[in-house]
């Protein structure tokens, strides 16, 4: 009896549909995402990987384009008062959710208010500057902020708008099972951790995308993603830098590489042990040959970084530089500081966010030991590492990365330089002041503040910026697509050749 039971169990597990289209240009895209998305309820859920789903199925007030620019989405325009504490967004007319419910300012206000009501939600932190949200009229939403915030609209690109009545009727749990939005795609089938299937929303208010259906599938292993694309199981998948070369040689696939919005850097606990000495911190920066890492180890699929902001990110400035690779000078500084080989702990995560992190860490260890610094290399899995970062428990230097999903310098610099920031060991009041200051100014003057802050940070050696990695993708040879700097998927502009 067990046998038949299991057999029928398996049969139920398979869906019979293969690729719908055959012969003609495919209209279905299967994309791999590197981790399991969390809940499909956009009010509760805000982890990065889920946004690859939400960008398709929900509307956000604004959107950030592939090249990092701010663009209208549900909101057609937005304005702020003079001191940047009150923002009004004007909404698109005639937007309806897929079940017919009209999306108005009420729905926007509801979505934001619900998020703000729960400080334990994943999205709450993006709205920490918001004091209140209200619908001024059907098509106008007003945000009142606690303090000036010039880059506020970028944060709204992460918040999805749900149809308020439907959400309340269904309740959060039921909504997560069968979410309804107003985006260009509808949820077709959700198999948690297996696949998230979307179909085109023919009633979408905006431009109709070319692709008819999208399947997003979590695939955690790099090798599996490459092979998935090479064997045709996947149409597009993020891959690691070492795999780029092997995909490039294939006819059936192509590689997309684009500089990301993130920076890989060394965090430095400047309050601990020998690292309290600025000369030793400087020596660490001088001892690392960033070029060797980006060109040798990462096969040119990264660029050396001089600041903790990537070029794609608002706030980046070319003027900020850091001293070049100079092991001689590093040795001198160490000698000056009287460094006597005290071991410096070096934490890194063996897997997870930074591709080849173990190799990178080993290279850095070797360079530092080259100039006479003793390194105590400590690997851990990503989660343990994250907990340590978040608990501010690092005792020496550590490998970390920051990639702002808003593609704006505000998020990382808050975290790196403001008192509550997770990476801020120095607690330097000057950095905190500058980090707050940029929110109150706009345009060129804002960039100036950024530049000042980043230069000061480099001088003090609070962080050692290492490199800006590229996002690499293997994709079907016929795919016409532009990858985003933040590594998320948005297939609304995508098609097959």
């Amino acid at each position, binding site marked *: 009896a067990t046998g038949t039971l299991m057999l029928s169990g398996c049969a139920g597990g398979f869906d019979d549909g293969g690729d719908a289209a055959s012969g003609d240009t495919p209209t279905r895209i299967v994309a791999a995402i590197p981790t399991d998305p969390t809940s499909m309820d956009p009010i509760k859920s805000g982890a990065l990987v889920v946004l690859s789903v939400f960008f398709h199925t929900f509307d956000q007030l604004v959107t950030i384009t592939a090249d990092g620019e701010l663009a209208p989405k549900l909101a057609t325009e937005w304005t702020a008062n003079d001191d940047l504490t009150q923002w009004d967004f004007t909404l698109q007319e005639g937007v309806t959710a897929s079940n017919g419910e009209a999306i108005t300012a009420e729905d926007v206000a509801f979505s934001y208010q619900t998020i703000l009501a729960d400080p334990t939600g994943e999205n709450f932190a993006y709205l920490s500057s918001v004091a209140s949200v209200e619908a001024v009229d059907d098509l106008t939403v007003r945000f009142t902020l606690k303090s000036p915030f010039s880059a506020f609209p970028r944060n709204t690109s992460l918040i999805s708008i749900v149809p308020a009545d439907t959400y309340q009727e269904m309740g959060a749990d039921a909504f997560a099972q069968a979410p309804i939005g107003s985006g260009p795609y509808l949820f077709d089938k959700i198999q948690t951790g297996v696949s998230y299937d979307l179909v085109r929303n023919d009633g979408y208010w905006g431009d109709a995308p070319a692709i008819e259906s999208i399947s997003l599938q979590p695939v955690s292993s*790099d*090798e599996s993603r490459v092979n998935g694309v090479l064997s045709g199981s996947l149409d597009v998948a993020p891959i*690691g830098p*070492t*795999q780029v*070369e*092997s995909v490039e*040689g294939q006819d059936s696939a192509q590689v997309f590489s684009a500089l990301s919005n993130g920076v890989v850097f060394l965090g430095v606990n400047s309050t601990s042990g020998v690292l309290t000495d600025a000369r030793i911190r400087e020596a660490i920066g001088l001892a690392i040959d960033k070029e*060797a*890492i980006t060109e*040798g*180890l990462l096969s040119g699929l990264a660029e050396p970084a001089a600041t903790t902001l990537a070029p794609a990110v608002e706030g980046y400035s070319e003027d900020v530089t850091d001293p070049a690779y100079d092991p001689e000078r590093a040795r001198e500084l160490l000698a000056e500081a009287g460094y006597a080989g005290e071991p410096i702990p070096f934490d890194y995560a*063996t*897997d997870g966010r930074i591709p080849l992190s*173990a*190799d990178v*860490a*080993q*290279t850095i*260890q*070797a360079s530092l030991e080259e100039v006479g610094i003793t390194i105590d*290399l*400590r*690997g*851990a*899995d990503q*989660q*343990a590492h994250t907990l340590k970062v978040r608990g501010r428990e690092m005792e020496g230097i550590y490998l970390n990365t920051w990639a702002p999903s808003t593609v704006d310098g505000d998020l990382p610099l808050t975290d790196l330089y403001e008192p509550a920031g997770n990476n801020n060991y120095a607690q330097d009041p000057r950095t905190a002041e500058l980090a707050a200051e940029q929110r109150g100014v706009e345009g060129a003057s804002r960039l100036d503040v950024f530049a000042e802050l980043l230069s000061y940070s480099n001088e003090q050696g609070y962080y050692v910026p290492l490199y800006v990695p590229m996002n690499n993708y293997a994709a079907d040879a016929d795919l016409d697509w532009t990858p985003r700097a933040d590594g998320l998927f948005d297939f609304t502009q995508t098609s097959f050749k």
Partner: protein
Amino acid sequence: MTTSLTLATAPVVQRWRPRPGAIVGALMLGTVLLLTALVPLLPGYDPMGQDLRAALLPPFTDPAHPLGTDALGRDLLSRLALASAVTLGMTVLIVIMNAVLGSLVGILAGYYGGRLEALITLVSNVTLAMPVVLLLIAICAVLRPSAGLTILVLGCTWWVGYARVTRNIAAALRRQDFVVSPLTQGADSVWVLTRHIVPNVWPHTLIIAATDVATIVLITSSLEYLGLGVQPPVPSWGSMIFDGQRHLAGDPWLALLPGLMLLLAVGGVQFLSQQFTAETRGGLLRKGGMR
């Protein structure tokens, strides 16, 4: 593991008459051991020294790196030798820990039976139901992942196979007259356990241990696949294969060379261990007629 090992086929460690398989096995294992022992004596031995400009050299192209270099430009031959020492060392430790622990538990359960046996059954059930990998992840989250931790955790959780077999043997031995007889002459249980049970059980333990060597090498390498185990920059076969598979398309030797070492070791131990298993092949069921 082999529950079919009964007293009837008890492997009395017999006269040493090598079988062909055993010779092959010894040669395979010997190659690995020789490499492990001799390479560190070579002048160019440097498993850690990096040179990103000389990364991924193929084998037999540069006399300084006879087997080429890895992605960080480290000498592959040196790393293979170090990895062999690390992997074999870990494996042997783990196997010994489990063999001792498992046999002890099994012997006690088999000899005393009753509540002790029930308790041991429970513990082994829990051990089996608690996946080693989960245990390691959890423990590594508290402490740092390291070779020592892996040895400790695997060394304490892979004993159930030993316990099962030794339990059966000890239970069978307990009923043997030669075990009862010292008791009637005034001996206590310790006497019987140390003089009669343990010496009659250990040949079986030895056989399981021999087959287990392979299993443990594979488990540790699978754990390294998950980032648990030996920490970089110290290599192990498992981590070398794992790192190497990223370069499988362009530079396959990075994965294949440590894979070959693994093959030699696992195959070697396996063929050697067959030396010990009693060859009760064929029996009456042999083919043919009168001849």
